[in-house]
């Protein structure tokens, strides 16, 4: 009974995390991206709490709190400040238009299902049904990085991918060892900051954050 509830809840929340990922593909405004990411991170925090509660793993609460501060409060704030500074609002036309992107997103979800299907049959964890969503989210993050032209959006895509990985970890293993988890967060933070620095530098040197213009180095 408990396991069933656990399973249902975790799958539901995982699905909502994925949903926000898909929303990211749909939206065009940069500000909306930040909002979407914020909501997604919130859902992820909830997922952590659910797993911590049902899985009897108090360590995950702490991680959840850390996650909340980092991804729901700190990073979005930094991103918003950046948007104010550089005064850009919209993503330029991506390499693949929104409609096709959404279709491809669907395909990726199916792909993730197909890929994780054999794995799910191997294990008995109650959270296993959420695994495809995690993998799909990773793919979507990758997809966003590949198809969006603004450095800013790529950073967001990367963050979404990170969310996917975190979701994979929490669903598949109820959290990896703490020391690793802490290291991952540190790296994430550092990585994000470095990327942010570079986005500023790109803005500074190229007077635009359109990465498709960074194509001088070839061959």
């Amino acid at each position, binding site marked *: 009974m408990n396991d069933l509830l656990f399973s249902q809840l975790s799958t539901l929340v995982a699905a909502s995390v994925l949903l926000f990922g898909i929303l990211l593909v749909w939206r065009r405004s940069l500000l909306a991206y930040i909002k979407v990411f914020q909501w997604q991170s919130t859902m992820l925090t909830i997922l952590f709490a659910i797993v911590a509660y049902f899985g009897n793993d108090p*360590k995950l609460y702490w991680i959840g709190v850390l996650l909340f501060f980092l991804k729901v409060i700190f990073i979005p704030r930094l991103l918003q400040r950046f948007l104010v500074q550089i005064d850009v609002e919209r993503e330029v036309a991506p390499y693949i238009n929104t409609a096709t992107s959404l279709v491809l997103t669907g395909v990726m979800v199916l792909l993730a299902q197909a*890929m994780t299907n*054999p*794995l799910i049959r*191997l*294990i*008995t*964890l109650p959270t296993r049904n959420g695994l495809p969503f995690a993998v799909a989210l*990773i793919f979507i993050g*990758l997809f966003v*990085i590949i198809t969006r032209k603004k*450095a800013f959006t*790529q950073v967001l895509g*990367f963050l979404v*991918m*990170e969310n996917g*990985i975190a979701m*994979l*970890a929490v669903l*598949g*293993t*109820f959290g*990896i*060892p*703490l*020391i*690793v988890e802490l*290291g*991952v967060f*540190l*790296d994430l933070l*550092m*990585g994000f900051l*470095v*990327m942010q620095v*570079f986005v500023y*530098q*790109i803005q500074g*040197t*190229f007077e635009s954050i359109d*990465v498709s213009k*960074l*194509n*001088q*180095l070839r*061959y």
Partner: protein
Amino acid sequence: MMIVFHFSLLLSPPLLAALLTYLVRDYRRWVGWSNTILSLISLGAALGFVIRVLVDRHIPTWGLQLDGLGLQDIFRVDGLSALLLICVTTISTLTLVLSPGLGKKDDFSDRPLRQYYISMNLLIAALLLATVANNVGVMWVALEATTIFSAFLIPFKLTKASVEASWKYILINSVGIALAFVGTVLTYFDFVAIAGEADNALNWSVLIATAPRLQPEILKLAFVFLLIGYGTKAGIAPMHTWKPDAYGESPTPLGAMMSSALFAVAMYAILRWKAVVDTAIGHHYTDTLLLILGVFSLGVAAFSAVQTRHYKRMLAYSSVEHTGLICLGFALGAPGLFAALLHLLNHTLAKSFMFFVVGRIEDRYGSNAIDRVRGLGKTMPWTSGLFTAGLLALIGLPPFGLFTSEFALFRAGFSLHHPWLMVVSLTLLAIIFVAFINHLNHMLYGLTPAGVAIGETGNWQLVPLFLCIGSLVILGLTLPTPIALLLNQIVTTIAS
């Protein structure tokens, strides 16, 4: 207790050096010397580990028995780690010796220089950490950190090109390394599914012990993620695309670090994981994947080398080539592994050497376009000699070490009945060879462009470079017993 001291002797000097650089503001020469000396301490500690591994015949391990943190046996130095430690510390010492700051006054201002030293030392620390970490998760964390620190260093001169290169570098590598984390998580997930949750589950020693019971399906998937992830870091084609940009635009010492030490550690990570997967499901699967990527890398490198127009990018393609070769070696059983590790060692030495030489050329000519460098032989006779020697070493000519290791590698390939694969590889190597000789000749001869001074400067820098090429020759003609013992030990533990 001794072990802790030893580990801290290894890991703390770069951190200390970074701290010192941060604190000491004006006296740059002092910074240079202190960094060099501290890096020598690391080097000494690394040698100490080699002695421990070889002479004492045990595997130094250290960790904290604290619940929930996963710190059990977190540091572990077996033969493979010892080998990598030697690579990393040697190259880092060389890098710090040849970094700007030592020697003549140059035109770098203090602020970027300080930033440079801090990042460089942190990069070295991360590399050392990745090497000694028993926990594959920590290893991942350290490797991710290397991306971050090195990304700081690429736009040292803040040109458009360097910003572009660093963006590509950090984005591609972050994505790649994230995928490697997916692989790590998948394995852990496998482990947890089989053996239940454990704090030390991500310790390599534990993983490899548990490996026979792990589920092949998941491991197969995990290894793909790991291979792509760490392969991005190592620059296996087609994930190599950041290499030419990053190598081409980064300051010379960083190029040396990235192309040798960083690359070596990335390959080390792949090898660690390969060992785990092989123990679980046999080596055929990983071998096949590595062979595919290896030959693909060789092909991409070969044809890219033909058309390249910048000599630093040329070195990047050379790295892709050697990545491919080492991948092949990893996939060719015990003799292949031996050859690949020897090749890794040789390549580390040769490639970093090459970057320093190229740095001298770039300083003089002010461009890294092959077309702009003419008459090198007359302009800088010694440097051009070293450049020629280094390039010949890189394309696998005797009497340099790479000839030996490539030979051993191909021998392994032929003895394992992969003749066609080997023939294809040999053909691709021949193309690379011809392309490089062409570029080399283009640079060596002709008339020095106007405005380029003639004659050598900074001659003291030649001394370490000659030492470098000298060791390559020694490695070509003989194999010092410690290295032979170390390699044999690694081969017996990893490819048993």
